[in-house]
């Protein structure tokens, strides 16, 4: 497993050793408290985060921070192993998907007692604080607000002679548009839409529109076999009419920017979490657009705002105050938060957002614009995913592929999904 270890103190130690001072190398900075921080992400993120850490060390001379970063795939096995070994970093970049698993297993520190003291994030608002809470306790400082949306190539839609979907477009309209696109389009192996049948986020939005949810408050499945069958049937219609990419192309999609069918040039529309928009735009030659996911006609709001990620404190941290100070510095203190910028999502603090606005590039502006325009379409946060939700997601994806490759019918798919998901949830 590859990981990039940024350890300036060791580096200093090494260079000091070269000039014969190796004994004193480790003490290059006289700090009373040492803390470690870990995150996943790109080179760009690392540069920003390291710069912000440096600013923190200047502001808090008694704390030294050792930063470490790696890719998403390596991150979770490593973090889980470190926590098992009792030596996890003090400040941990946490994902919304995993915070429940880690918080409920007692690996994270509740931050409520720091709120208003070291952690001055009250201006994030109730929704953003709740989205980082598990069972009523705060476990993280929101690093960026995120929402599911459609990312699209407006020029491709224009070439096909169809108005692209926009805020408030219903699923019926969306399918109609995609089928019309298929008729107007003349590019080979090119389709209007991604095959969203295996995209849990879209499924969730669609369920919310129908007054259902992925999971209920008590951790059970929030939908039944009929809902799932309807969802799969809708995509069968889409696939048959050539409105979305065929299943073997969809199966190339690994939920990463480089493998998106939109980026690979197979389709004109994909669904993403909004913080990925900037990365998509960087890989695309044409200017891309960002809009809301389709809604259910006369239904409940599909969208909700969730944290792209949060900074959480390790439960066994020896210096929790310093870790909380660092978290606060990165998300709420302009000296740190402005360095991180929009790279992790739209800042939850209105003050930081306002301070950032003047210097934003076009793509980042589109994301801020999207989050503000989405507000009328936003509903309450869904219930917390129960233990086993990650495995249910894999079941959902497999069943969607079985229907897509015609190894199963929508009805049978809906039944087997609900049956298997229930047995996973029972096992926990």
């Amino acid at each position, binding site marked *: 497993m590859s990981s990039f270890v940024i350890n300036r103190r060791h580096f200093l130690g090494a260079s000091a050793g070269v000039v014969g001072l190796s004994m004193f190398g480790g003490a290059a900075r006289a700090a009373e408290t040492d803390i470690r921080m870990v995150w996943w992400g790109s080179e760009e993120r690392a540069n920003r985060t390291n710069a912000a850490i440096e600013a923190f060390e200047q502001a808090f001379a008694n704390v030294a921070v050792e930063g470490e970063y790696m890719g998403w795939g390596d991150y979770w*096995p490593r973090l889980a192993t470190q*926590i098992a070994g009792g030596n996890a970093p003090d400040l941990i970049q946490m994902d919304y998907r995993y915070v429940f698993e880690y918080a409920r297993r*007692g690996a994270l520190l509740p931050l409520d007692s720091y709120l208003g003291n070291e952690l001055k994030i009250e201006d994030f608002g109730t929704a953003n604080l709740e989205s980082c809470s598990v069972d009523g306790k705060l476990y993280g400082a929101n690093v960026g607000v995120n929402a599911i949306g459609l990312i699209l190539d407006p020029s491709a839609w224009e070439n096909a002679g169809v108005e692209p979907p926009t805020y408030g477009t219903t699923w019926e309209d969306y399918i109609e548009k995609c089928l019309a696109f298929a008729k107007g389009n003349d590019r080979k*192996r090119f389709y209007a839409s991604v095959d969203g049948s295996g995209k849990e986020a879209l499924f969730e939005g669609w369920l919310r529109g129908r007054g259902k949810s992925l999971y209920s408050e008590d951790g059970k499945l929030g939908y039944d076999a009929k809902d799932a069958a309807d969802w799969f049937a809708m995509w069968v219609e889409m696939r048959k009419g050539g409105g979305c990419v065929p299943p*073997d192309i969809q*199966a190339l999609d*690994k*939920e990463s920017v480089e493998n998106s069918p939109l980026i690979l040039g197979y389709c004109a529309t994909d669904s993403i979490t909004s913080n990925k928009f900037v990365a998509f735009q960087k890989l695309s030659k044409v200017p891309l657009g960002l809009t809301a996911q389709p809604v259910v006609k006369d239904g409940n709001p599909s969208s909700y705002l969730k944290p792209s990620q949060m900074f959480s404190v390790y439960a066994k941290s020896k210096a929790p105050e310093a870790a909380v100070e660092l978290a606060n510095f990165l998300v709420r203190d302009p000296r740190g938060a402005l360095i991180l910028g929009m790279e992790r999502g739209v800042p939850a603090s209105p003050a930081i957002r306002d301070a950032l606005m003047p210097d934003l590039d076009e793509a980042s502006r589109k994301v801020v614009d999207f989050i503000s325009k989405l507000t009328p379409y936003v509903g309450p946060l869904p219930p917390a995913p129960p233990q086993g939700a990650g495995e249910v997601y*894999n079941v959902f994806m497999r069943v969607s592929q079985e229907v897509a*490759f015609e190894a199963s019918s929508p009805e049978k798919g809906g039944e087997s999904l609900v049956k298997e998901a229930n047995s996973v949830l029972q096992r926990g």
Partner: protein
Amino acid sequence: MNITRHVTASVVAGGPPRPAGGRQGAFFRNLPGYLFLSPWLIGFLCLTLGPALVSLYLSFTDYDLLQSPHFVGAANYVRMMTEDPKFSAAMRVTFLFVALSVPLKLIFALAVAMALNRGLKGLTFYRAIFYLPSLLGSSVAIAVLWRQLFAADGLINSILGVFGIEGPSWISNPNYSLYTLVVLSVWQFGSPMIIFLAGLRQIPTDMYEAASLDGASAVRQFFRITLPLLSPVIFFNLVIQTIEAFKAFTPAFIVSGGTGGPINSTLFYTLYLYQEAFGYFRMGYASALAWVLVVIIAAFTALSFLSTRYWVHYDD
């Protein structure tokens, strides 16, 4: 797997002729030997044997990495055998992969080795070229390259396109995805090829000359001279390659993005084990899976050894 190899190695290393004298004297006489051995010995005890024993214990527990394990008896093994459809799916995929890739790879390696053994000029150059894929073999880069080759607009389909065939996206189609991984494995025929080549050069040429004089055809020479005399080498390659194939992980992990998809078509056993361990935090269950794999590989290796007296010919 590794363990068995290490154990045999240590048995061999620990068995020099016992010198005369007291027990203690022998110990001090052997001390330098143990000291020279110690880097390996410490590594083996702490990094291989220790963790292996711990994982054996964990396989009888429910352990989620974050909380301490608690003992559940044989529940993990029972679950595997009775109510885990993914376990049988992973078994099917893995056995199919082993059954296809190992023989194909050995045949291919032998064919190339025989072609190279005809006394051609620049043998070392060709040998290096053919060995290259094996060096890159299990790397992430190659798996990524494979995705590009066999994707919908990949090189393979571009070539097919010349003949007017519009191929599917091989790597992400459940009907073909496993076979692309078999091809990837066969392509890495380098190390068995090198060993075959060495084996072929051991066969005395006068045998072939005598056979030619007696009028034996090339095919007959192959079956009557080459294969029997090469059988110890074939046996060695068979065992090593079977073990390797059971342990294959990286290609499936990269090609399927860690899911084993589409529709579990590339769900290698090791990939399933990894998912259970690090995806779903079921270390106890994953440890049990690992030990079942150890038993399967050991059984296959033992079977191969038992079969040797029917088809492997040793010269002496």
